[in-house]
């Protein structure tokens, strides 16, 4: 550390010194310099004045009911998120239920028909045909049921 920082380089540090933003080493060097330098001491006083005035700025008035409006918005958002989760859960549960019913019926239908139920040239109890048909039916039914249940739940909540 043979370099001797110039007056200008110390002067450049003054705003940050007043803001408490110098590291301990810089702060000490500046302190030593300011002991000898009248101009820097005066400047530091000015910057410290700014720093103190900024800390004492009058706080803005918070809008009336901001807390209450925020709380209401949070409650609404929380309820909407809960509804979305419930709809997704219901859709999944209903789809699973419909799949189980579909597979059970397929198994029963194969037992009853002996593995062959031909309608318009297609064997309905073949696994592929049954799966394709029941998939469309299952998802449509589940989606409609989930929507209906969700709407009913929201109407019930609104009525409360």
């Amino acid at each position, binding site marked *: 550390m043979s370099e001797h920082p110039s007056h200008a380089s110390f002067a450049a540090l003054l705003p940050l010194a007043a803001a408490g933003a110098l590291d301990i080493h810089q702060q000490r060097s500046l302190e030593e310099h300011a002991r000898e330098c009248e101009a820097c001491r005066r400047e530091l006083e000015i910057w410290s004045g*700014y720093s103190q005035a900024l*800390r004492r*700025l*009058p706080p803005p*008035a918070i809008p009336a009911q901001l807390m209450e*409006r*925020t709380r209401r918005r*949070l409650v609404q958002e929380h309820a909407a998120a809960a509804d979305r989760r419930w709809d997704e859960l219901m859709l999944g549960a209903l789809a699973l239920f419909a799949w189980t019913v579909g597979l059970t019926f397929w198994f029963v239908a194969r037992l009853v028909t002996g593995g062959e139920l031909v309608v318009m040239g297609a064997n309905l109890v073949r696994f592929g045909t049954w799966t394709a048909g029941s998939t469309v039916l299952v998802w449509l039914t589940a989606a409609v049921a989930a929507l209906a249940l969700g709407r009913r739940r929201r109407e019930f909540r609104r009525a409360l």
Partner: protein
Amino acid sequence: MILAAIMNREMNPEMNREALDGAQDAIVRMRRGDPDALTALISRYQHRLYRYLLRLVREPAAADDLFQQTWLRVMEKIGRYDASRNFESWLFSVAHNLAVDAWRGQRGDNLAEADESSQPPSERLPSGDPGALERLLDFERGAALAACMHQLPAIHREVLTLRFEEDMKLEEIAEVAGVPLSTVKSRLHRALEGLRAAMDTRIPGRKGI
């Protein structure tokens, strides 16, 4: 002596410890699904968060909306909040990011200038109070300074409010603004220089604040 006072202020770790402990307790309760915990957190930080947002965006309506959005985001992300991080820095960084997104939508910092109070300072002071004149002068100095701060770019207003009004450490400011420490220092330097230049223009010939 001035430098020593600044250093002492900087090295005082007791300042917000109690407040932080209370916040951590509310965060734990919020994660457990306690509905009152978020209200407690909002109540604790409402003034500081609103002040920060207002300094940043300048427009009360925008600050109001961002305030609400910030808490919605907090509610949404509290499960992912790392408890080893400083909650205040995290909260302000959520607000910062939402403000940046809002600006991107509006293409620039061109919000209308708004005076936060239309009430004249003299009407705020009780008559016959011996400290009234000093407080009036203080208020006028504060009002002039706030007006000059208003003219600065948003990044400079942000660093000034976080450093001086929120009393955040430089590392915390860096976390909030998502920039390196060196950038925070240079912004702080430029912000103070800009503020002083604006004050000198406003009140020519004046040496100090």
